[in-house]
């Protein structure tokens, strides 16, 4: 459903992506791994419309798309958990989760917010993720893991066809990691495609069907999970093994 055709991205002298091509099938869970600075987040940001490729193009569900803004990506059904979380610190967790898709009721021509309904739904989502996060706390006052839980909870509301998760489990605690992985399983069962970026080898091997490895902007491997091993992937990431 998503295909990269020779995509490159330069930032001044830095070549963050170099001629990357791959494709993802509907309902697939693909792991994206690579060293720090390998270009994983840049790749995600190209799909979600933040960056434009310097060269190459991508197709989504068969048609060549020019994703020129995050709003456009959302319209296509692409939802993203960003590595830097993208939260408005001065709002509550519930407000962040519902940002851009608030629940409202009508009073004549006006549409007012359903505060209670949103808080209740947000609290439900956190309970589902087994996260110790309070829906009506300001995000500014939250711990690192609570912030990440807010970012993950957002995706639960979206009606997405492709979900990109950029290190969603970096800051969260053991028990929520398991919840996130089971969430990914459920998404897959619902036919939603997931691209998971993570530095945690066990997580990737637990949920992904295929793993793509990046090194210094190049794709160095693209293998079904069954045909590779953590050791091989580590070697690919560090550059000990050149390609596979």
């Amino acid at each position, binding site marked *: 459903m998503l295909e990269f055709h020779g995509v490159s991205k330069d930032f001044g002298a830095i070549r963050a992506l170099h001629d990357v091509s791959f494709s993802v099938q509907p309902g697939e869970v693909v792991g994206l791994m690579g060293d720090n600075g390998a270009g994983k987040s840049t790749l995600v940001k190209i799909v979600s419309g933040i960056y434009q490729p310097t060269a190459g193009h991508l197709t989504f569900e068969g048609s060549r798309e020019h994703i020129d803004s995050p709003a456009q990506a*959302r319209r296509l059904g692409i939802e993203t958990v960003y590595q830097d979380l993208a939260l408005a610190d001065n709002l509550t967790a519930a407000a962040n989760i519902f940002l*851009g898709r608030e629940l409202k009721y009508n009073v004549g021509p006006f549409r007012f917010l359903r*505060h209670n309904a949103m808080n209740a739904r947000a609290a439900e989502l956190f309970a589902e993720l087994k996260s110790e996060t309070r829906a009506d706390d300001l995000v500014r006052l939250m711990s690192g893991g609570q912030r990440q839980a807010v970012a993950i909870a957002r995706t639960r509301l979206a009606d997405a066809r492709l979900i990109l998760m950029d290190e969603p489990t970096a800051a969260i605690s053991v028990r929520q990691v398991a919840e996130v992985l089971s969430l990914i399983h459920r998404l897959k069962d619902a036919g939603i495609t997931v691209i998971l970026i993570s530095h945690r080898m066990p997580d990737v091997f637990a949920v992904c069907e295929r793993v793509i490895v990046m090194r210094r902007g190049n794709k160095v491997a693209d293998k079904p999970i069954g045909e590779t091993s953590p050791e091989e992937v580590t070697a690919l990431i560090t550059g000990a093994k050149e390609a596979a």
Partner: protein
Amino acid sequence: MAETISGFSNVGRVRFWQKGFLASQSAYVLAALIVLVVVMAFASPNFLTPGNVSNIVRNFSFIAIATLGVTLVIITGGIDLSVGSTMALSATVTSLVLSGLAGAAVALFPGGALLLAILAGLATAAAVGFANGFAVAKLKLSPFVTTLGTLSIVRGLAYVATYGRGAYPTGPDKDLFLALTAGRLFDLVPISFVYLMILAMAMYLALHHTAWGRHVFAIGGNEAAGRLTGVPVDRVKIVVYMLCSLAAGFNGIIISGWLGSAPANLATAYELTIIAAAVIGGANLAGGVGGASGAIIGCVLIEVIRNGLVLARVDPYWQQTLVGCIIVAAVLVDRLRSLRNG
């Protein structure tokens, strides 16, 4: 901890002074304001006379409507320096149109000319706001420089429009115009105060009970996050700048009605006072924080200082110094809050 809520054993009950209005900067500045009023009342017997109170109410309504608008802009993390000029240009346009239609027969019904004149004035303001908003949102220019530019452009246009002379409202609708701007409701409440209250209420509802208000706060808190999560950032910003200019324009029209004149230098340098009022009332220039009640409290404080010093017959050369001191003192009060809430 006996009193926990919502199943979190480490969360107690929030004390009443730790939440809502009482925990806000506005509340502390309001306290400072009350102290000031008491002091002034002792310093000058004229201070609390009905006549003076009604003067104060009218005077602060003059800048308070514009302050509401600027507060919106500040919440998004922007700034609008062009409000003073916009007040002048809107007032000028309204007066010119009103006078221009005096002879013409366009006015289909009584007050028709006035309606057209006010619409023309507000349309001008909206155009200025659109220009600001477009430059800031779409061209991504710095709001400070952009609106400093429009400050100059718009003031220049007010001079050009009247060849420096300014305009004054005339024509058959003039009395209606005066009644609608300088009049008093039930012979008591200045009508500008009524407008202020209605607009403040609308702003409160819009900010806290609509999705649009959420988006305004979100943009101020983290614009990038807003953009990434589907908030129509550019549209919201443009609307905010337009509302700000409209508020300023409306404010300018009211002042010109009260003055019976729209001089081209009307409201010169008001922008700093207006922004100061917003900031004193709790708006944060870094974005994401602010509200209608704070804006009004800030305006009242500034007007009480000004009026009080005149009534207390302080040497005019010292007045300016004292105004500055009291402004700083008022925000200093807010430090108490941070100390108390840790």
